[in-house]
Every structure is written in structure tokens, then in C-alpha cells.
């Protein structure tokens, strides 16, 4: 019997993989000697690393064929850039193919990441969308197991990725949350969250709390053998419904949360574990049109649905309606400001707890209704300033709400629904990942008010320890860091940039032009496949926008065993 504990968290990313895999089975793809590193860091004066902070290895765990993906938290905070993100997405895509062809391979992801690497901003977002899509598809054949051993933890877009996993193992040191403590403090103020208060941080997003509230599945001591045993047990276990698909359960839970009450880790545990029983039910405040803030999300929703009332009566910040598109009916969804929102951190159209779970509900509703028939098009109208930054949001697992929305859109797409994202305003960060980034096709209005990015300039400057001026200087060298839609278009993810439209108050002709474009896009989608491949084969992607992403995938395929 081995009485010596071996800490997993103390090891670096590569050592972690070597420790978990059965001896002698470690086969690394794109190892450091191949020098496939980020092309975007050196132009910004940042030292690159030869594996770009991600280790991809095939091997065996307990004799079972396994793919282990390990993120190096000590390199750039485990941030996901173009190369590191494509290594993860590309490896998962190869695992999908193997599993579909009957060659079972179990994916295990070791998370140690702050989320999107802000120095590569939109590359990180695009990769994380591709990673999320791959996990949803993989879960049809094998459980996808996530481990958060601790040091950095798992934040930002990658917390949404963790929320998509079938099973999650955490140590006490591990943390899982959408917004890191410093970012919440920056965006919402010290009163909302004190980023130096360690008991508050771990009581909100630490491993023990996450497992106690059911947002992770196993609390493990930081010991290689214990964590390995956990992985093996989750490989064997027949799988229940993943958390991100348990929409009704969590939506009713969140609807019972009183966001103005004082919540402690203990009271949150009690509330969640009693499934919100005994909680007051909240009547939505009546919304009157005079008080509605002008919002492109609302304008375009009303225009494209001919002013239909929304189906989502009890969540006024989410608009949902079925309306004509060509010869068929499409479902339109939009997230809009609600000045009466019960959650004070969600007054300006942010994606919060209710928004994530509600979007998931309305997407899934159309999937169920169309079973056996023609899957209807789903149009996500996007004008979202950010995800919601707040203490209660993290306590009640906003990353899981976002994962639910990602899961729903991805499942709808994979089940044959043509899903279109129409960007009419802001498409920022976790909000865009949740609402729109899983679409088959992304369309955007060509307008200065249309922006795509990973984080507000103020927060991005703080996190990367630069001034806003330095940050703006860097965006000139790396288009993925810029906020404007033309820079985003150069990366190849947009299938169409629609010009000549007044985004704030479109005329009837302009609305018709956009509707026409949507109809054409639906046809285009039905002719193509359900995956996100078009983002990598578009003209802009091939001509440089996704050069490294394409190269990484090609090399991974060559080295895959």
C-alpha cells in the first residue's frame, strides 16, 4: 500500500498527465519540440511557450484508452489562445470521430485556467465555442470528465466548458466560477465582492461548496491516486442527464432565489439542496413600455417577429417568439435590458442566471416540439453587453446557466435546427458564448455599435496589467484583440457582414433585407453540415484569420493514434 500522497496540483501540466496515465502509455501530440506556439504573443512583447500552455496526450487510464488534456495554469494564467484552444478543440474533435467509429476513447480535461487569454481575446472565444460544441457532441458516446485540481482554478469561458462536462472532480483548493474575484470587484465594486477576502472566495466558488451544492460531483483530496480512482469510477458509471441539460430543475430553483437577501455559503447550500422549497415565489414587476430602455435587441426582435408578444412572460429580459421566416416558422430569441430585473446585476441586458436557463428552456422547447418533423430555424438576436458580474451570480453558479444555454443551442444545431446568430449590437464575452456563438452561421450588421470582445477594456487592462493606452496599442497588432466588427470579420467566423442598415431604427425595407439574408442563410445551413467547420474553411479563415487553428488541427490528426 502506498502511504505517500502525491499532490496533483503541485505538478505542472505535463507532469499531471504523466502521473494520471498508466505507466508507459503517455503519447504526447504537438510536444514542445515541435514548437507549435502562439504567433500572437511575441509581437506584443510576451514570451511564448513551446506547447502554448496546453498538453495533449493519448494513453491509458486503468487500461482504458484515454485522451488527457491538461492546461498549464502557470503560463499566462492558463489563458486560452488560438493555438492552445485549437489543441483542445482539435483533440476533442478527433475523439468524437473515434467514438463514433466505435474506437472508444475517454476524454479527461484538467482545468487550470483563467479563461480566454486576453492577449488573443476573440481567438480564445472562438476556440471555447468550438470546445463546447465538441463536448456536447462527445457526451452522446462517452462521459466527458473534468478535473479542477487547483492553483488557478477554472474561470471565464472555461468555467462554461467545465459546466458542460458530464462529471466534475474538484479538490478543496479548486475554484470554479464564471467571473474571477478581481473582475467582479472591478466591474461591480468592492461592496459586491472583495477580491482579497479568501473565505468569501472559497465559500462562494471553492471545491467544497461546489460539490455540496451539486455543481460538481466529487470532492477529492489533492492526491493523484484518489483523483485517478475518481476518473475511473466516472468512466464506468452509467451516465445520467448532464447538469447543463437539467433545465427545468435549475430554472425553478433560480426563480426562487431572492437576490436582495443576504446569502451565506451555508444558506445557499440549504436552499439548493432543498430544491428551493419554502422559498417565496416572485411576481415579475409589471413592465410598461414607457420604461423600456431603448435596445437594439428589442428593436430587432419586434421588427423580425412583427411585434409579437414574448412567450417568456415571467422573465421579461428574455424575448422569445415564433414568427414567419420564408415559408416556415422560426423561433426568435433576444436578451434585453429590464430595469425592474429582480437581480440588481442584470439591469442592462446582461446574461445572468435567469437568462441562461431561460434561453436553454426556449431553445429546448422548440427541439421537443419539432421532434419527428422539420427542425425549425432558431435565430438568436444579439445585443448583450456582458455576463452578469455579482456575488449571488457566482454563488448560484452562473457558469452553469451559461453552460445550459450553450448546451441547448449546440444540441439544437446538432439535431438539425438551422441556428443563426444575428449580431445587431454588442456581443461580448460569456454573454456571446451563451447566446449566439453556437450558431451554424453568424451574421452581423456593419455598424460602429457592433462589437465583439472578451472583456471590457477596463477589466482587460487590470487583468493583463497594462494601461488602457497600452491595450489599445496592442489591438493594432493583433486583430483578435480589437473590438470592432471588421477586425472580427477578418478572423473568418462571420458568414456575412450586412451593410447599409440603420441598426438603431431600421426602415421596413432594411428589416426585409435582413429577413431575406436570414432566409438565404437557413437554406445555406440545410445544405451544409451541423458542425462549426465553416468558421475554419471560410475565405477569411483560410487567408490568415485562422491560420494557426487550421495548422494545429492538421498536425493533431497526423499524430493521433
Amino acid at each position, binding site marked *: 500500500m502506498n502511504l505517500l500522497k502525491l499532490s496533483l496540483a503541485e505538478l505542472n501540466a505535463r507532469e499531471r498527465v504523466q502521473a494520471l496515465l498508466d505507466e508507459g502509455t503517455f503519447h*504526447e501530440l504537438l510536444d*514542445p*519540440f515541435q514548437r507549435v506556439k502562439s504567433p500572437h504573443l*511575441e509581437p506584443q512583447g510576451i*514570451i511564448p*511557450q*513551446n506547447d502554448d500552455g496546453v498538453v495533449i496526450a493519448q494513453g491509458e487510464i486503468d487500461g482504458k484508452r484515454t485522451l488527457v488534456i491538461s492546461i*498549464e495554469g*502557470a503560463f499566462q494564467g492558463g489563458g486560452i489562445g488560438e493555438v492552445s484552444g485549437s489543441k483542445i478543440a482539435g483533440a476533442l474533435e478527433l475523439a468524437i470521430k473515434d467514438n463514433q467509429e466505435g474506437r472508444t476513447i475517454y476524454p479527461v480535461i484538467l482545468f487550470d485556467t483563467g479563461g480566454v487569454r486576453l492577449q488573443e481575446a476573440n481567438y480564445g472565444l472562438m476556440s471555447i465555442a468550438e470546445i463546447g460544441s465538441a463536448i456536447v457532441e462527445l457526451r452522446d458516446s462517452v462521459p466527458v470528465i473534468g478535473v479542477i485540481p487547483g492553483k488557478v482554478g477554472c474561470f471565464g469561458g472555461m468555467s462554461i466548458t467545465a459546466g458542460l462536462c458530464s462529471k466534475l472532480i474538484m479538490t478543496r483548493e479548486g475554484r470554479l466560477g464564471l467571473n474571477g474575484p478581481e473582475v467582479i470587484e472591478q466591474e461591480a465594486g468592492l461592496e459586491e465582492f472583495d477580491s482579497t477576502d479568501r473565505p468569501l472566495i472559497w465559500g462562494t466558488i471553492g471545491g467544497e461548496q461546489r460539490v455540496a451544492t451539486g455543481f460538481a460531483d466529487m470532492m477529492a483530496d489533492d492526491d493523484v491516486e484518489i483523483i485517478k480512482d475518481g476518473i475511473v469510477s466516472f468512466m464506468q458509471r452509467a451516465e445520467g442527464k448532464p447538469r447543463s441539460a437539467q433545465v427545468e430543475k435549475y430554472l425553478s430553483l433560480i426563480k426562487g432565489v431572492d437576490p436582495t437577501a443576504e446569502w451565506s455559503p451555508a444558506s445557499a447550500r440549504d436552499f439548493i439542496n432543498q430544491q428551493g422549497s419554502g422559498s417565496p415565489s416572485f411576481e415579475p414587476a409589471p413592465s410598461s413600455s414607457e420604461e423600456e430602455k431603448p435596445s437594439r435587441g428589442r428593436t430587432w426582435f419586434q421588427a423580425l417577429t412583427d411585434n409579437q408578444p414574448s412567450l417568456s412572460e415571467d422573465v421579461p429580459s428574455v424575448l422569445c417568439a415564433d414568427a414567419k421566416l420564408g415559408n416556415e416558422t422560426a423561433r426568435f430569441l433576444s436578451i434585453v435590458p429590464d430595469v425592474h430585473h429582480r437581480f440588481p446585476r442584470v439591469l442592462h441586458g446582461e446574461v445572468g442566471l435567469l437568462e441562461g436557463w431561460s434561453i436553454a428552456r426556449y431553445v429546448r422547447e422548440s427541439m421537443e416540439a419539432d421532434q419527428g418533423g422539420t427542425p425549425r430555424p432558431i435565430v438568436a438576436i444579439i445585443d448583450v453587453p456582458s455576463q452578469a458580474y455579482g456575488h449571488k451570480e457566482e454563488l448560484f453558479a452562473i457558469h452553469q446557466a451559461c453552460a445550459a444555454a450553450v448546451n441547448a443551442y449546440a444540441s439544437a444545431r446538432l439535431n438539425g435546427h438551422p441556428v443563426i446568430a444575428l449580431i445587431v449590437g454588442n456581443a461580448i464575452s460569456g454573454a456571446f458564448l451563451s447566446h449566439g456563438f453556437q450558431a451554424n452561421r453568424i451574421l452581423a450588421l456593419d455598424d460602429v455599435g457592433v462589437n465583439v470582445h472578451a472583456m471590457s477594456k477596463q477589466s482587460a487592462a487590470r487583468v493583463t496589467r497594462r494601461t488602457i493606452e497600452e491595450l489599445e496599442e496592442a489591438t493594432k497588432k493583433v486583430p483578435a484583440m480589437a473590438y470592432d466588427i471588421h477586425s472580427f470579420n477578418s478572423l473568418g467566423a462571420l458568414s456575412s457582414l450586412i451593410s447599409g442598415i440603420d441598426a438603431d431604427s431600421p426602415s421596413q425595407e432594411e428589416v426585409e433585407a435582413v429577413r431575406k439574408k436570414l432566409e438565404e442563410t437557413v437554406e445555406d445551413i440545410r445544405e451544409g453540415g451541423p458542425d462549426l467547420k465553416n468558421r475554419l474553411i471560410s475565405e477569411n479563415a483560410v487567408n490568415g484569420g485562422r491560420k494557426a487553428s487550421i495548422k494545429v488541427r492538421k498536425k493533431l490528426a497526423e499524430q493521433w493514434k
Partner: protein
Amino acid sequence: METLHFEYDAKEECHKRAHVGVVASGDLEVLLEPSSDQKASVTIRTGSEGFGDTWDKVLERFFASHPVAANIEINDFGATPGVVSIRLAQALEVSRNHEPA
């Protein structure tokens, strides 16, 4: 950020490549690959500019006691001379003891 290059006479052969370290704060990544030239050839990318003389002294001392013929690439994130020497020694040990990855 600057890139430095140094060469030292080295006659000892090494047979296996080695990779150690992480580009983490105060640390560095070392890639060591055997060379058929009789010299140690070192390329350094570092975020801390103006320490060329210090690098030269640290490396000169290392290769004086371990004259290993190799191409070495270093990505440095502000490692101290002590950390640099330890990582180089570690790379050499891996190159002598372990099977190539």
C-alpha cells in the same frame, strides 16, 4: 523582450533531448537537443532586458563544468541565475537518464 545568443566550447556528447520548466513568473522553459557540433549553442528569449552579461556568466560557468554539445532554447520569464542553473542541470539530468518523450 529581447533575444540573446551565446556559444560555448563543448565536447561531451548527450544522446537524448530534454524539456523542463514552464514560462511562469520567475521560471523558464528549457529545451535541450543533442548537437553534432562541438559546442553548446544557446538561444534565449527573455522578458527582462539588459541582462546579457549575467546570462553569459551563468552559462559560461555551467558549460565549464558540463561541456555538453547541445542546442538549447530558453524561454525566460524573469528567472534568477539560481533558477536558471537549476533548470539547466535538470535538463541535463533528464537528457542523461530518461527515454525521449
